[in-house]
């Protein structure tokens, strides 16, 4: 229905929220629907631009204060699929949910998936996301065979491990700064059923977690929920969850749609130390037995929170602060214990604490976050005077233990911390498109280059 001559691009000003809902900035929103619109839509823009998808990054890596956000979710067309090889080529605004709807009935699954399917292909590449199978499959970028990069000067580059490999490396985990990712080819993995052979195992303490990690090396998916409110006897208790795609041929139907929507913003007091520690206790004891074995659908296994749309409203208006580190093996145990102690002592409860061992499959990405060792993801309600000092302390501890933080889940690290975590950032800066930037990038490089 739009005019192909396209006299003027639709622009509206508004607020684009990241998933943490902090920070929140005004920006121009420019929705794109067609591949040929990148340039006309962004030509001559002042104040920079950034491609955004579903806004599932938690902090400000998908924000650009007073700039232009190019919304790509209207570009969700498939370009090619080869049922022999599982290679799928799609426009970058396609979500992983849309890919699953297409792939599962054809007997394929995502090679790597995060804890939500509501992210775009482009966002998954730009943040080089990881999943429960990192220890065997590496990051999302390991399964991208090629992509196209559209630069603001009008040039288009096909990038792959062999073609423009330097651009490919800079773009995987490149925070969307190297150019617009217009489409990409992803290698899907075959499945014969929607089901996951699931096993949940309670653990008490970090050493039991590490033992379970060692024992489950050959299991495709592993992740743990850890109770970070308890101290003493219950310190670092949790549930180790592991699974493999069922090898028993079964249903390959598409998923039903989520029906639940978190309907309102919870008041600030709803999440307090008591309610969260209660939740943690319930979660731990919900699993009545030390070991539970089940054949589970992939939806609750991978995406338990996607069942409730807008679950982030639980954190109220002020939003939440995410924090995720990766600490290398040599300090992983010590660092994890120290950070969990610090969190428990702070009294700032974290609802969803997720613990996992990263493997050593190298990512092609220059700025990729995961590294062999332990990763822990926490979220904190934003409480004045308490949350930010805690998170800064945790970031410093991460640095002392030789680890680093995940830009997609950060709204607080300082420029010094970032530059210590990612000394290669200056290399990325050389591949950065002069038009593109993000509030995250301006914050951590302290260098609003063109503004």
């Amino acid at each position: 229905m739009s005019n192909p001559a396209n006299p003027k691009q639709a622009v509206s000003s508004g607020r684009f929220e990241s998933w943490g809902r902090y920070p929140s900035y005004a920006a121009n929103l420019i929705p794109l629907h067609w591949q040929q619109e990148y340039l006309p839509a962004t030509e001559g823009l002042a104040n920079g631009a950034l491609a955004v998808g579903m806004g599932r990054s938690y902090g400000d890596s998908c924000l650009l204060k007073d700039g232009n956000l190019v919304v790509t979710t209207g570009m969700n067309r498939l370009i090619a699929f080869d049922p022999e090889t599982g290679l799928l080529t799609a426009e970058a605004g396609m979500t992983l949910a849309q890919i699953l709807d297409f792939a599962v009935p054809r007997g394929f699954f995502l090679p790597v998936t995060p804890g939500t399917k509501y992210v775009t292909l482009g966002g998954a590449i730009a943040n080089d996301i990881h999943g429960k199978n990192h220890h065997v499959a590496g990051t999302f970028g390991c399964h991208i065979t090629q992509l196209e990069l559209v630069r603001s000067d009008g040039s288009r580059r096909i990038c792959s491990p062999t073609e423009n490999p330097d651009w490919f490396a800079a773009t995987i985990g490149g925070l969307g700064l190297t150019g617009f990712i217009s489409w990409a080819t992803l290698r899907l993995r075959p499945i014969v059923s929607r089901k996951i052979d699931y096993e949940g195992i309670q653990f008490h303490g970090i050493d039991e977690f590490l033992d379970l990690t060692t024992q489950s090396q050959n299991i495709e998916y592993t992740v743990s929920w850890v109770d970070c409110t308890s101290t003493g006897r219950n310190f670092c208790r949790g549930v180790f969850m592991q699974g493999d795609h069922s090898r028993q041929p079964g249903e390959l139907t598409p998923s039903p749609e989520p029906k639940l929507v978190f309907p309102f913003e919870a008041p600030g007091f709803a999440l307090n130390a008591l309610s969260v520690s209660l939740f943690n206790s319930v979660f731990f004891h919900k699993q009545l037995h030390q070991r539970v074995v089940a054949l589970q659908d992939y939806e609750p296994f991978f995406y338990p929170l996607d069942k409730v749309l807008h679950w982030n409203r639980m954190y109220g208006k002020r939003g939440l602060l995410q924090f995720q580190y990766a600490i290398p093996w040599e300090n992983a145990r010590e660092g994890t214990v120290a950070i969990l102690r610090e969190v428990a002592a702070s009294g700032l409860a974290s609802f969803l604490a997720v613990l996992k061992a990263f493997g050593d499959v190298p990512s092609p990405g220059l700025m990729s976050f995961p590294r062999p060792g332990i990763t822990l993801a926490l979220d904190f309600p934003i409480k004045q005077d308490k949350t930010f000092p805690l998170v800064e302390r945790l970031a410093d501890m991460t640095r002392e233990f030789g680890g680093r933080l995940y830009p997609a889940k950060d709204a607080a690290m300082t420029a010094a911390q970032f530059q210590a975590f990612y000394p290669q950032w200056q290399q990325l800066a050389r591949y950065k498109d002069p038009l593109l930037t993000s509030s995250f990038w301006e914050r951590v490089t302290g260098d609003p280059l063109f503004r």
Partner: protein
Amino acid sequence: MSQTVTTPKKILVLGATSGIAQATCRIWAAQGASLFLVARSAEKLAAVAQDLQVRGAGFVDTAVADLDDTEQHPALLAHAINALGGMDIAYLAHGILGDQEEAEQEFNAAAQILYTNLLAPVSLLTWLANFCVQRRTGTLAVLSSVAGDRGRKSNYVYGSSKAGLSVFLQGLRNRVDREGVTVLTIKPGPVKTAMTAGMAKSSSFADPDQVAKSIVAAIAARRDVLYVPFLWLPIMFVIRHIPERIFKKLNL
């Protein structure tokens, strides 16, 4: 595996690159339908055709055409139906929102909206209805709008084009129903597509995939009129019944 078996349909889509049409065609493609797509932009048409092919359409062919060119309609339609090897459904999804403010000042701008949204469909439907009547089968599914249910100052030119279209379809249905031909008038509320991208609050508009699902179901059920999302049926009932002396003062 309790999937209902649907015989693949032969579907002619006019205005195939519109947001609602794309979403609808994806559902048909997944059912293995044969699709003939018509739109103005060759580049966009190629992207849509490729997408539908990958999604499992049994057959996809395209023609680039400006549907304002009513002279070409008979040849275009004959060619499309020939390529499809018949036609079960004609889906008319082309249209323009236009610029209301401009149309208030410039007759030519108003005329353009009426031409594209009303006269061009009348030309297409006249040919298509006669084709279907001759064969005593077929469904004509046409995108009108809730905007055609009552004139409002914010979009009455667009609204009047859709009102004309809705009444035309009513009469056409009355004529051809007894000949075995189904006419579906689709009245969407605001939908989140490229057409509405510039409108305020467009982020709260209906999701095109949901709208498309309802459209596919309504066509399969041979319904007459579809308000989509369904809530627009009671809303428009109320809006239609507000007395004019009150309505004329409102800012809807």
